[in-house]
């Protein structure tokens, strides 16, 4: 049963990890906690809902469409709400991000009602049994997608030209400009990738839990942000590690009978970890320049 609970934790963690990746990328490049990230995930799920229920597309085609639309939306949000504030205090951008988040949540709720909707079951759930262990095909899809996306991201960041530009902007924006890097385009690209990932996450979660609503991004959004910080914000493997860790922690506190205090235990452990490693588990302790 412990192993089953670990698997449960891994799956829940993969959900957080998928979201945390987007947070971490955006943070890494412009040091912004993008509160609207969880809502892009919600939009991804709603676009998926539209393509599947109204247009009856194939799941994977719908997935690609939804990712593409959210990528564009992500760039648009960055262009309208964040870019003009690039050189303002960081907290101003944060509030603007909160504003975008409220707008998306409540705009969707205004247009389509805030009630839950059932997500079309485009892929049939099949349960596999291994002895006393049980895992469904959708759970396997979620874990593998999370892993594949993470590897892909690492390749993009490490091997491609755009990835190098992203790292350059993240390290030193001024120097990046001097090296002839188009900073605006690089940041747009980061938002596009982050949002596409969130959209994929939203659709997978819709499929897995079978329901979506305008506020579905709120709690996972905060959890994913916590996960990103826990792993060391700005570090891609850190986001995955943080996500899984929180997923497993949540599952385990419930398994030992502390369901009333689930989130409290998670936060307490988080604080302890941060006190021991102030920049997150994989974070490097940067020397501060005087």
């Amino acid at each position, binding site marked *: 049963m412990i192993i089953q609970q670990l698997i449960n934790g891994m799956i829940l963690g993969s959900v957080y990890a998928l979201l945390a990746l987007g947070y971490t990328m955006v943070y890494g490049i412009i040091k912004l906690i993008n509160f609207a990230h969880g809502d892009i995930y919600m939009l991804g799920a709603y676009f998926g809902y539209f393509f599947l229920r109204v247009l009856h597309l194939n799941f994977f085609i719908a997935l690609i469409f939804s990712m593409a639309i959210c990528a564009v939306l992500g760039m648009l949000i960055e262009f309208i709400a964040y870019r003009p504030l690039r050189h303002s205090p960081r907290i101003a951008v944060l509030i603007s991000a909160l504003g975008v988040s409220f707008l998306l949540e409540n705009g969707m709720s205004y247009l389509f009602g805030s009630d839950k909707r059932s997500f079309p079951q485009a892929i049939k759930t099949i349960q596999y049994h291994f002895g006393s262990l049980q895992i469904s095909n959708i759970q396997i899809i979620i874990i593998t997608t999370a892993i594949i996306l993470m590897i892909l991201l690492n390749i993009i960041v490490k091997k491609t030209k755009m990835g190098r530009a992203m790292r350059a902007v993240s390290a030193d924006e001024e120097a990046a400009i001097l090296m002839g890097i188009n900073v605006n385009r690089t940041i747009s690209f980061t938002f596009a990738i982050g949002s596409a990932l969130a959209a994929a996450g939203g659709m997978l979660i819709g499929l897995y839990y079978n329901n979506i609503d305008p506020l579905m991004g*709120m709690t996972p959004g905060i959890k994913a942000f916590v996960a990103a910080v826990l792993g060391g914000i700005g570090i891609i493997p850190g986001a995955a590690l943080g996500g899984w860790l929180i997923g497993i922690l949540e599952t385990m506190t419930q398994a030992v009978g502390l369901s009333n205090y689930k989130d409290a235990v998670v936060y307490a452990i988080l604080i302890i970890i941060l006190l021991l490693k102030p920049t997150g588990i994989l974070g490097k302790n940067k020397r501060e320049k005087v």
Partner: protein
Amino acid sequence: MKKIIAIVVAFVVVIGGVIGFGMMKKTGNKTANIVKIGGVFDTSGNVSAYGQAEQKGANFAVKHINAAGGVKVDGKTYKFKMVNKDSKSDNTEAASVTTNLINNNQVNAIVGPVVTSAVQAAIPSATKGKTPVISPTAGADSITVQKNGTVQPYIFRAQFKNSYLGTKMAKFATDTIKARNVIVFQDNSSDYGTGITAAFKKAYTGNIVETDSYQAGDTDFQAMLTKIKNKKFDAIVINGYYTEAGAILKQARDMGIAVPVIGPDGLGDPKLAEIAGNKNTSNVYYAAHFSTKALSTDAAKTFVKSYRKDYQQEPSQFTALSYDAVYMIKQAIEDEKSIDKAKITAGLAKIKNFEGTTGKMTMDKFHNPKKSIVMVGVQNGKDTTATVVK
């Protein structure tokens, strides 16, 4: 120095203006021929799904009343008017909105708030404003009782009180389901979940194997279900709303847990089967005010029929309760032959054998409607059986 003088002069002028304005202002006459009903509904924020459903129900009722010619008092005909304000799922805002409706909109009665804690916050405003407040869905026993044990004069509800629900569910679990061992899941973030659980535990004679909690908004229940999967139990009781209960149901059935699931009226929404999937929504029993399968009153029949026609969907318990709340106010006006706030309050307290969509009800002395609970059985996502629990 000039500036200072200017400011002092400006200040005196403003104060003078205020005084002048205050002297001229007369107590304006109330708009004739209109009964204003204030709606305190959470149409934004995290309980907005319920708030929007209830607002719909109240508006629907007003539409019906006006279409049927309004309400006649002493030969004079009054039309109803809803004044809805959003309390954004926030208790402080519920208090503020209630004050606003009473003092600025001069409403005759209020329908709302949605949840227990918001009603608690609205009590002082209602009491100060001497305005009857009827909450469609707040369940806590305590909201209609004052600290000294007497009734809270201005607070009413259309909902069952939590202890009644919990007790009847326990009886149903023992008598009809014949469950000796049950698992209880409760929504720990609202009084609705914990209140019903407490009453259930008190009344249930069998063995409660395990009690686990979740939070409103949770979507993943794998850990909770894995933990109980290998234990011995005959039924699961889910004390919460359809949103989470639907997800629990789906994940439990996917895991191969096929035992009966029992829940309060919070499960009574067509969305339950949508979220869980029709196949998974079998062997589910929920406490209901009415069932689209076995409509108990004529009012229910007309309501369900016209609701289907207008919205092309099945009404939920939330909509029905809010619809009834407005009709109870109408009943009180007709009984007392007055649209005066104090009279409506008195009328509501005396409601007897009122035929609502959610059953035939009589207000008890603590402003709780006495009506029978129907345990509706669901198979394949459809209401199939209806058992009245005495």
